[in-house]
């Protein structure tokens, strides 16, 4: 697999995700500056976490209009898989590649902790190394992670099986207590119509090596590498 990580001014998880990708792929991903016009030919584009453009105006709003995003959107629409983590998820909603929006956390607090997620689907390039319904532990670190969309869109996401991950308890129950940020229907991540674009608030790259205290994030990168050869 060949991967490209897009780097914006204010990205701060670009190197972490590059390490996780390299561990899975056996080679380094291309690091592509946001001012470039084109993403090099690759099998996966990653929009990393961070605070692109200082979150000015809205999280992801500025970066969504940076030169590279035109090509990211064009390639995504042609089927190139795109993984957006945290601020990368903001960017995917701001560019319209995914529906809805990430609002300020209901508690108004920045939340930085491990959460439990239920794997809603394992029949995708991103998640086939997980078991269906598996509960995994992945960290979140965000101020704006409160997923919002109107009821029609939420129903469509559910109906089309596009919820990727849900905040849940240890038994996999997506209840209110397990919801860290007020997200509608405990949604932590969603797919586009074709299952080729994934946006999620939790950071799989932050628990993808035993040295980090856990490896529940690792199967996502292994899945991608195996699926996108």
């Amino acid at each position, binding site marked *: 697999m060949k991967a490209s990580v897009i780097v914006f001014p204010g990205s701060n998880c670009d190197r972490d995700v590059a390490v996780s990708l390299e561990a899975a792929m056996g080679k380094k991903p291309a690091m592509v500056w946001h001012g470039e016009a084109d993403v090099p030919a690759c099998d996966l584009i990653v929009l990393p976490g961070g605070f692109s453009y200082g979150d000015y*105006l*809205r999280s992801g*709003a500025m970066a969504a*209009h940076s030169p590279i995003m035109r090509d990211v959107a064009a390639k995504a629409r042609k089927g190139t898989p795109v993984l957006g983590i945290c601020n990368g998820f903001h960017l995917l*909603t*701001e560019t319209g590649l995914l*529906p*809805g*929006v990430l*609002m*300020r*956390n*209901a*508690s*108004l607090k920045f939340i930085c902790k491990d959460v439990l997620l239920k794997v809603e689907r394992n029949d995708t390039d991103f998640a086939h190394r997980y078991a269906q319904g598996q509960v995994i532990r992945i960290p979140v670190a965000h101020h704006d992670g*409160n997923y*919002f*969309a109107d009821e029609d869109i939420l129903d469509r996401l559910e109906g089309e099986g596009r919820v990727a991950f849900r905040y849940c308890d240890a038994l996999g129950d997506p209840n209110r207590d397990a919801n860290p940020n*007020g997200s509608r229907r405990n949604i932590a991540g969603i797919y586009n119509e074709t299952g080729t674009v994934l946006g999620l608030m939790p950071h799989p790259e932050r628990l993808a090596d035993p040295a980090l205290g856990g490896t529940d994030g690792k199967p996502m990168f292994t899945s991608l590498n195996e699926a996108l050869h």
Partner: protein
Amino acid sequence: MKARIKITLKNGVLDPQGKAIANALGALGFDGVGEVRQGKYIEIELDDNDRTSAEKTVARMCEQLLANMVIENYSYELEDA
């Protein structure tokens, strides 16, 4: 020409910041505070002096960047420089 733009949350979209402000006002002893909604205010100076074309420009600015139309509405006033 100067545009004075207000970005507000749509009805039905929960506004936790507005709620926190209402609580803080109550804590300060301001009675009778109902719902509080927080938004953004943006001023933009435009070279354009034609009202009709400036209106179109500002609307496009709001829809493409300044507001997230999923959750926000915008309104604006134009003022002759």
